[in-house]
């Protein structure tokens, strides 16, 4: 049997998805028997040039993790799409933007200014900000520029499959890999490696089905009963609006789910689904009573859209006209702007 050509790439990512692949352990050796890894910058020696030289469709499957934050991320996404028969969004960043897409609330200029000019302890009297191209005495040094918003992979190129999680559980990655190796892939657009249920279905805690609380508690404000549903004890838990697959690991550790596996099948907007699940739990209460309790939730956007802002109906906060008219942060002109308009 001809070996598969496999590629792994990270764009704007933390490295956790790559660690999850590494956690495959002995399965990696099995993988090496049936697949050649033809591109994996974090572990292997191949370069962009090597990918550019490949025939279109040369790669059978690319696992792409990380969100699209810079023009370089977008460029590589286009390149790998062209070279890959099957493109898989691996993990929360590629699938739904993950935590870095909370950056869409304030935009890239705010991010650069806060880090480079305003962070306590940063001494930057001249207001220096990293530039797309900078002339040093010896020559020009270039950097990728930040896009005006963090996007999911699918918002940049067509995606065939998604593997949810921050990071995806390694067993689930192996399940997906097996589907790929045995050529038993489900219809395009499916999630790989996960069950068709919510985290609540995997959670061992007891539920009544009703929320009888006068206020919500933040996790540090209450020591919860270890046997009972956290949501019913007044702790926001994203379990009902989150796809199953992790095994409710955080809840087992007495901490509420924050939704890193994204919405369950058939749900587009995870935040709206969570709000819906919470409100539905208040059986027989009046709107005013429910509103009073909901008002005790601090940071609704960071709570309901912790991992999924880029892929939600919201996408981002409304951008100023000035920012929405251009693709990048206000750094000096980069060489990657054309890539952003493709």
């Amino acid at each position, binding site marked *: 049997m001809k070996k598969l050509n496999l590629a792994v790439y990270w764009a704007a990512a933390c490295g956790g998805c790559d660690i*999850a692949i590494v956690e495959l352990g002995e399965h990696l050796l099995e993988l090496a028997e049936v697949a050649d890894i033809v591109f994996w910058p974090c572990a292997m020696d191949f*370069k962009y040039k090597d990918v550019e030289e490949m025939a279109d469709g040369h790669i059978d499957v690319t696992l792409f993790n990380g969100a699209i934050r*810079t023009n370089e991320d977008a460029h590589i996404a286009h390149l790998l799409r062209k070279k890959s028969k099957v493109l898989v969004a691996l993990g929360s960043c590629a699938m739904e933007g993950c935590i870095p897409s909370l950056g869409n609330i304030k935009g890239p200029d705010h991010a650069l200014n806060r880090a480079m000019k305003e962070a306590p*302890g940063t001494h930057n009297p001249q207001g220096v900000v*990293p530039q797309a191209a900078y002339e040093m005495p010896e*020559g020009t040094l270039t950097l990728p520029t930040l896009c005006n918003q963090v996007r999911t992979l699918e918002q940049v190129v067509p995606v065939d499959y998604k593997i949810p999680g921050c990071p995806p559980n390694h067993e689930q990655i192996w399940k997906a890999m097996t589907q790929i190796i045995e050529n038993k892939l489900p219809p395009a657009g499916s999630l790989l490696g996960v069950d068709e249920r919510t985290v609540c279905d995997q959670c061992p805690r007891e539920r009544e089905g009703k929320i009888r609380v006068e206020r919500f508690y933040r996790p*540090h404000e209450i020591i919860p009963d270890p046997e009972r549903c956290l949501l019913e004890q007044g702790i926001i838990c994203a379990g009902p609006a989150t796809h199953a697959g992790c095994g409710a690991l955080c809840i087992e550790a007495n*901490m509420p789910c924050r939704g890193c596996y994204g919405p369950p099948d058939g749900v587009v907007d995870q935040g709206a689904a969570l709000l819906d699940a919470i409100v539905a739990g208040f059986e027989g209460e009046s709107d005013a009573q429910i509103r009073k309790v909901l008002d005790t939730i601090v940071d609704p956007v960071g709570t309901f859209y*912790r991992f999924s802002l880029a892929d939600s109906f919201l996408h981002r906060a409304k951008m100023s006209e000035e920012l929405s008219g251009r693709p990048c942060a206000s750094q000096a002109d980069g060489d990657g702007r054309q890539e952003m308009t493709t």
Partner: protein
Amino acid sequence: MKRITIDPITRLEGHGKISIFLNDAGDVENAYFQVPEFRGFESFCEGRPVEEMPRITQRICGVCPTAHHMASAKAADAVYNVTPPPTALKIREMVYDAFVSGDHATHFFVLAGPDFLVGPEVDPAQRNILGLVAKVGMTMGKRVIQHLQETHEVVAMLGGRFVHPVLALPGGVAKAVTPEMQARLIEIGEHLVEFGLFSLDLWRDAVLGNEEYKEMILSDAYLHRTHNMGLVDEQNHVNYYDGHVRVVDVEGKEIARYAPQDYQEYVEEHVEPWTYVKFPYLKAFGWKGFVDGMDSGIYRATPLSRLNAADGMSTPKAQEAYEEFYDYMGGKPVHATLATHWARLIEMLNAGERALELARDPQITDPEVRIIPEETPREGIGIVEAPRGTLTHHYITDEKGIIQKVNLIVGTTNNHAAICMSIKKAAQALIGGGKIITEGLLDKVEMAFRAYDPCFACATHALPGEMALEVSVFDNNRELITRLRRDESIRE
């Protein structure tokens, strides 16, 4: 001016590059190490509740999420001015020590080890973990894998999972240790100590026993005389989870010893327009550019720095190893960058011993692991020693504990300026004078920064393969005259 561009470097988070500029004589004039990635956590953490920060900021790095998790939890404790119960602190420290032991092992055995245990001059196809296992045997390979799995097990046992654990929150930890868990933790702790001793034996035999490596470690190409920083306990022993930050100058003299909340009096950060990572420096000396020595503000915060900044180790076996280290290297402080690997192994032993001590502590099974914070939140700073350097989280909140401002000085960032200098110095020593640039020579340039275990190279830990190097030599008109590239390492 000729230019050598090393681009792309793989095994980085995102895309990294090195530009080396040669003067007309063909010697290295300057070198730049650029980090072209930026996600902007300082900005989008604003508006988030402080108790969520341990679960948000760990997404900075999926390789050392436990370090961010702990620094963040400590900062959040400080925001609420709450001291967690003693058992909670012990659980945090034990989990953290197990994490440090595992992280150090992955760096040494998977990333850096092949340079020493296989060698820079051999076929790069062999210079990786598979080549290493082929050379030293499957028994040792399995031992390394078991070590990594057991350290992961400790983190997951309390934190739910190994990548992005969830145990710590302001006022303590979410889960207590049961007697059954304790028994397993002790068993693992014993293994960690054995593995630490085994690794140091390997270092003595395979590295110190080899004249060529010994010479490299002691050579000027890999030497920088900088100040050193590290967290110390009350006895001035190395500690990873807690303590005061101690800074010693290039001669080893204490020049600062401060509590985390005072860090701004001692450290500032400089911005360059050609990279997304800032350059911290000691405020007392100021930013003097990319130079080492007594008058420069550049310091290092690495395993070697921590040993230099401390008076000793907190555990007996590691203390012995520490004494042996300084005897061998000719006294304190040690500035030889490659000796960082040795220091890392000593820390690995120390972290294992400390984790075992804590696992055996009768108090570790006390169910009292949480205190509910009651004071009005304001501002807090938390510092831990990440495997790669001093990690600072600084939060300012409103009266509801909602983040208003964040500052983060991440482990590797401390060493950014030193890494730039180390690349330049190794390149200067190894390239030029009409010498032909060989693959083995390039690997020796890489060894200059691999010693720092830079976090941009994090996720390489358990996989074979060599860092990609493509060296392009340009003439004065920036026309390509030659290109040399290292080939892939594990294709069959």
